[in-house]
């Protein structure tokens, strides 16, 4: 197999999905982020965003905290150490693959 293709094919598929890449990118810039902010900046629907969050939670890349602010339920998300290293690794791998491609 060509080396550049191999580089692309070995990318972490959990991170590579565009919506999940956006979620992790945002979370990596903060200590904690509320669902509402992610909904606004990603432009994703609640359902779509929730399913991507669940996928990232299953992979251990983020932690979800549900709580009440007054009487209103709220959700807060935090990137985990493995999420941070997966995002870093993904970017490095992608850069290498792009460089090989020229």
């Amino acid at each position: 197999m060509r080396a550049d293709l191999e580089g692309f094919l070995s990318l972490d598929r959990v991170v590579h999905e565009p919506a999940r890449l956006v979620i992790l990118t945002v979370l990596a810039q903060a200590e904690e982020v509320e669902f509402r902010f992610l909904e606004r900046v990603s432009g994703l629907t609640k359902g779509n965003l929730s399913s991507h969050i669940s996928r990232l939670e299953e992979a251990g890349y983020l932690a979800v905290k549900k709580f009440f602010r007054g009487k209103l339920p709220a959700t807060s998300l935090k990137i985990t150490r493995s999420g941070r290293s997966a995002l870093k690794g993904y970017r490095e791998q992608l850069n290498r693959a792009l460089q090989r491609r020229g």
Partner: protein
Amino acid sequence: MGDAIGEHFQPSLKELSELEKLTRAYGKFSRDAVGLGHVLGGGLVFLSAYLLGHHVHLGVFGRLLLGAGPFAWILGKEWLRGHYYQFSGRVQQPKRVWEDVLLAMLTGVTESISLTTTGFVVHGLLQDFSWRLALSSLVYAALLLAMPFMVWRYLRAPYEFVVGVALLALAALLLSGSPLAGTPRAAVVLGFLQVSNVVALVMVLVGFVEHMEFLKLRRKMRALKEAA
């Protein structure tokens, strides 16, 4: 999302970098920045320093109102943070490594200043005791001793520390009717009032710049929503 990293449906590196900047700028309003909160704090510092410096006669109600200023300011800035600046959900700014050390140092310095000043007040009171002086000294000392706690709990960012400590010190002087007035230490109070005016001006400017940044950020976020 725009064009490609590798495929045309992927967010581009430029878009991801924009998103990072936007998140950081929004997150700043969870701790470092508070825009109009700084403007209000600066205004209140200026007003308190002016009233003290010009010996404006204030009744008990007026004194209480201005003395409650720092507490009202803390409530106001926290409200602005949660309901105005972070209008689209909370984003907590990441903690920097040196922050805890700085906070511990600021709290320690405040504690030593407040204890030393309280010591001077008690010493002055013991030398020339009167009930009127005792009452005003008690109020003064109570506010001074509350300072380290307020710093540790509510004045965690450097600008907030400066405004908050200035406001608390001015409130202590206003509420107690300045027990230092007429003593050699009055010169110290006068110097403090001059510093307070500079602090007030800087805070108003800082707050104004932060608020302008916020307005720009809000326009960007509204455009994102419309684009979605």
